[in-house]
């Protein structure tokens, strides 16, 4: 036994302290409860589907009229769209982040970043409008498709939507690498690209991984834009890697169908189960990202 463990929180004297503390505690509790409540509500309302459909949920046929509720097509669509989005957005976004943080003068960095962040400000329903009016038509013409409403279209649209996230966070990650490392490497006579490849990127890699995971979560969860361009068909294409066909994601399915179902019916329950699956995926990603991110340290400690 060593000495007395001191209470970390200093003694509060006045009653205002007590009220203040109660307020702080209550607000914290509220926000903690909200998260649990969301998870709980989704779980309860998907229980009917989970308990009665069981493994049938993981088949590929969705036909509520016949009592078939297989979510594989939607799962496939969600994953495929996300993979496409990231495959486009990561290289593009990271290269741009390299530009803003390594090549651009400090003075302009801020302005350019702000401009690129404007991309992030465009509401997703507008992305949807533009996607239907332009991207799907262009893609259809370019690849001579029957319809431009494809998984690829949705992926491209999503890539554009998550691009600002990757650029901003990537730029922050690169910018957080202390200047002294760059100067030390420069002082050894390395070319700019060698400094970036050998020093800056490796040092920033955990933060970049965090940025990518965050973007992944965004892409998985995006609804409106995807719903308008993906085509809405619950099918897994015969060739799994054929991305120029219409499909369906979990989010677009929810957006289109949830209102058509009767509250608490099996159909409803199966849809909620899809939402729950989505939530679990996103939360798992968050947990992994948390593991990667350094915990926020207080400065000067």
């Amino acid at each position, binding site marked *: 036994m060593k000495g007395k463990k001191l209470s970390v929180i200093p003694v509060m004297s006045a009653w205002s302290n007590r009220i203040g503390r109660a307020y702080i505690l209550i607000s914290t509790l509220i926000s903690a409860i909200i998260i649990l409540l969301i998870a709980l509500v989704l779980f309860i309302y998907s229980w009917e589907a989970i308990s009665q459909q069981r493994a049938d949920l993981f088949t590929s046929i969705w036909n509520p009229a016949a009592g078939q509720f297989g979510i594989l097509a939607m799962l496939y669509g969600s994953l495929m769209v996300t993979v496409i989005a990231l495959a486009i957005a990561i290289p593009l976004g990271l290269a741009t982040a390299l530009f803003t943080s390594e090549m651009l003068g400090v003075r302009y960095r801020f302005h350019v970043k702000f401009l690129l962040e404007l991309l992030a400000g465009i509401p997703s329903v507008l992305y949807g409008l533009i996607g*239907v009016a332009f991207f799907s038509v262009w893609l259809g013409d370019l690849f001579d498709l029957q319809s431009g409403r494809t998984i690829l279209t949705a992926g491209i649209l999503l890539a554009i939507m998550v691009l600002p996230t990757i650029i901003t966070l990537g730029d922050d990650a690169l910018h957080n690498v202390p200047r002294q490392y760059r100067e030390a490497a420069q002082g050894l006579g390395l070319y700019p690209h060698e400094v970036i490849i050998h020093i800056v990127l490796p040092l920033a890699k955990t933060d970049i991984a965090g940025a990518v995971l965050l973007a992944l979560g965004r892409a998985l969860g995006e609804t409106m834009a995807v719903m*308008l361009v993906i*085509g809405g068909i619950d099918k897994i294409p015969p060739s799994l890697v054929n991305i120029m066909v219409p499909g369906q994601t979990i989010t677009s399915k929810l957006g289109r169908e949830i209102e058509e179902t009767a509250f608490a019916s099996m159909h409803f329950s199966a849809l909620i189960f899809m939402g729950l699956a989505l939530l679990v995926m996103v939360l798992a990603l968050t947990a992994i990202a948390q593991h990667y991110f350094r915990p926020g340290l207080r400065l000067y400690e």
Partner: protein
Amino acid sequence: TKNESLNAAGSTTVLPIVVLAAERFKALHGVNVIVNAGGSGVGINQLGEGKIAIGMISRNISDAEIKRYPNVNFVVHSIGKDAVVPVVSSEIYDAGIKSLSLRQIGKIYLGEITSWKQLGGPDKDILVIDKEKSRGTRHVFMEIVLGDKEVSAPGADLVLGDNNEEQTAVMQSDSAIGMLSNAWLNSDVKGLSIILQNGSTVEPKLENISNGRFPITRDLLLVTSGEPAGNIKAFIDFILSDEGQKIVRDSGYVSLEQ
């Protein structure tokens, strides 16, 4: 006063009528009618759950739906007539496909016919556009074409919801077929004539709809829970009045007396 308001929701086919009628109704009677879309299925569900006073539907209520809400006494009010027209991209229409039989259309949706060539058209794959399952348009169309309103359509390439979405998709394609309410036809989206079993063809024209010759017609309906009263009744009566029926005609549908 502001407190007086009604809620309506449902079919996107009926939506234009009700929205326009609601504007007039408010100007005349000061009663606000709040209208939401969603599709016929939504209209029935929300009425069943008591969230709205008036459901808009473009098809009949199914047995399953009646069973789902045993405590609700659905009362339907017909406010107009409409045809569900098989539509194709103008390119196909111009290439000579101006009419099809119900059997042919059915085979297209079942995936048995996949190219326009099989129908005497250009050598292009057919882009088959389906609608969401609970949509009134689809119920009526599939009932007549394939004999089952909730049949699956394995031949479908796209599944869309609202009429406008479907219209845009047909417009953007040069080889599409879809189903649309008569009000949505235009120069890019052409309605097909239907070849009847006796060999004669019927064009999707207002007179053929009103006289019942066009095979895929339906009533546009408002549903209430129990016999309407008060403002609900006033609103339905307004749509049934001359002024209301003019709105029906202006929206591209057939009014009751036509």
